[in-house]
């Protein structure tokens, strides 16, 4: 109960949603906070053979194996160079955990639902599928990523 209260609070101005805002190359993105179970520092991964390029490998997360994807590669950007300074955002869906490597986690962002533009045009097709909407915060455009299509394989 208290979770949902924090996530969405109805007031006079409309529905407010919360997102984890992060940096990827020179762009900013955000994930809905309710799908995120944790944020961890970069840790060593064991690479898996014959897998998609974005899948970096398996990391040890408290005794469980966590698949980690390079989000930059996943959305069609150049692979991160200095992974040691990067962060892993951990998602959980259907009891499966997946980690996404991002450059830097900035803050938890509160946005009014009405401020999210969903009729965005993307030149990049991969991006178009993954992006749920765009929000403008203090003249910075933040792309909101769709977790379901992000974790595609798990469902």
């Amino acid at each position: 109960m208290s979770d949902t209260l924090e996530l969405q609070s109805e007031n006079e101005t409309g529905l407010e949603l919360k997102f984890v805002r992060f940096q990827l190359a020179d762009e900013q993105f955000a994930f809905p906070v309710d799908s995120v179970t944790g944020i961890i520092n970069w840790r060593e991964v064991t690479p898996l053979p014959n897998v998609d390029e974005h899948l970096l490998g398996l990391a040890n997360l408290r005794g469980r194996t966590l698949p980690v994807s390079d989000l930059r590669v996943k959305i069609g950007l150049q692979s991160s160079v200095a992974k040691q300074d990067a962060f892993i955002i951990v998602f959980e869906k259907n009891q499966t955990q997946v980690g996404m490597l991002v450059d830097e986690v900035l803050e938890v962002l509160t946005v009014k639902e009405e401020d999210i533009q969903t009729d965005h045009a993307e030149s990049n097709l991969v991006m178009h599928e993954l992006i749920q909407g765009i929000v403008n915060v203090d003249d910075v455009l933040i792309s909101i990523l769709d977790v379901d299509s992000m974790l595609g394989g798990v469902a």
Partner: protein
Amino acid sequence: MSNGLNMADYLDLFLQETEEQLSILESEIGKLESEPTETRIDAIFRAAHTVKGSSKAMGFSGYAELVHEFENVLYLVRDGSMTVDSEIGELLVRTVDSMVSGKEHIASSGEDYLPEMDLIASLKMLSSGKPSAAPATSKPTQSVVWPAEVIDALHLLPNLDNVYHVKVTLDQTCVMKYVRIFMVMNALNGLGEMLASNPSQDKLEAEQFDFDADFLVALDAKEDEMLESLKAIGEVSGIVATKYEAANEASSATKVEAAVEVVKAEGVPTAEKAKRETNQTIRVDVSLLDDLMNLVGELVIDRTRLSQIGANIAAKSSDFENTDALAETVGHIARVTGELQEQIMRARMLPIDTVFQRFPRMVRDLARKLNKQVALNIEGGETEVDRSVIEGISDPLIHMLRNSLDHGLEDGADRVKAGKPEGGTITLSAQHRDNAIVIELSDDGRGIDPSKLRDKAVEKGIMTKEAADRLTDRDAQMLIFHNGFSTAKEVTDVSGRGVGMDIVRSNIQAMGGLIDLESTPGQGTKFILKLPLTVAIMGGLLARVGTVDYVMPIGSVVETLSLDSVKVQKVGKRSVMLLRGQTVPLMKVVEVFKVRESFVKESAEDYVVVVGSGDQKVGLVVDRLLGEQEVVIKSISKYCGELRGLSGATILGNGKVALIVDVNSLLEVTRGVDHGY
């Protein structure tokens, strides 16, 4: 029921007990027609009787009636006045089926089950004219001498008017005697105070008594009430309650064998205690054991990690007193953890009969359907295996048995033509061998014809004619494990959708096991399954390639060699080595498991790990050997897609994730039937 016993408490016990008895019935009833041995009839009888008794105790009279009618038919079988032909056999099997669904009904609703009327009628018709189950006659009452302490204690009571001597006789067929006696004692204590028993409580608990027991009780309730309560308990065939009279006790002094002890007597001789402990069991929820196993798995990882950290500290520190103490403590923890793991594994063990016992019935039904004569021999059913193995092995074995019956065994006429007995034989055996469980399933059928499989492989476009011709007979036979391969001419509803053996193989692989076959055309086929003792924890050989650590299941490692010591030859594009006269294909792990370049350091490729069994072997070329270690198997998330050649991952003592190699699929690559790489 107003007998003072809370039946809800007993429902679970009833269901568990009934389930056990029903599984006996299910496994034995199918064999009754072909082999109506006395032991078998008795076993069926006992099981049915127990079910009847406990359902009556629970007040499930409809259900009890079904079992009762079943029992009536069996009486006639037992005394020889009825022979089980296929019609009667069928009816009995149907009755057991009905008992099973009845139990399920009770389990889900908590209410009595009303059996199909026509079934009851058929059973009644069979047994009509004959007397129904004769009530067990009670033995003549034996007098009991209560010991002096009890008598003394009695005289401390304000009055002796409400003290009764209760003699309870159990059914001769009662299996869990103590459970019944326990219910009796519970009932007595609910109605007053139980003062003493003969035999003593300890002896009762150890089931060291025949079928009757005496109790001395000071009743708060009325005598009638007590009798009602006791009668409601299942499998109690006789209750005699008499008012206690001191004079009685004094006069009838002699005929008692068992010494009587005061109820709360302590200090049982240790030898007797030890003996008792061996057959004392409790029921534990399976999920509890699973949780324990998982926790121990975590502990095993931390144990390894702890000893590594300890060694690191010892190397850097000069505080010898404490590092020594640390090493000693860590050593002790390691021992205790090892022991704990072993004990919990043992607690999870079940005889493989748990799976096997369903098969005679299944084989019988199938044989009838296929119009074949089949004898199923089961050996080593008592072999104990982990629960996880039991769960995983059932479906593959069912597939394989069906295949043997349907495709393996020829029709009776063909068999006679081939000079074999008309009836086929299938043998299923289990045994422990080299820290693994080996299950073998063999038939004396037509065997696997390699040329047919070659043709099929070409026809299905799995390989070219040239490639198929190059296969050895054995490799061609192994094609039956290939995806989408069924050589049966027609698809039957028994087997033959071309998925069976493929699924069998992947199920066995998923458990970290190996499957192999030996088949001689015209003589028969034998499948050999080699399974780990447990699926959750596995012994593994650790090897490093580049920066990645791989675990090879220890059960499939044949030997390790230094690459310098073997002679590598090229056959076509493949590298092979000669191992004591056997040609073993070599496979570079770094090439099979292509990982991202940044992870591949300079490959040293110094060692060969030979994995597989029999003539199915492959040499894996690795950089370094890191030694043996126990690992806890973790599945790899579906997010990673299908990972050919890996069966899972594990976390090592240093916290690093290692990958577990799936030996079977690597063997497949060497057979050239897989294009997955």
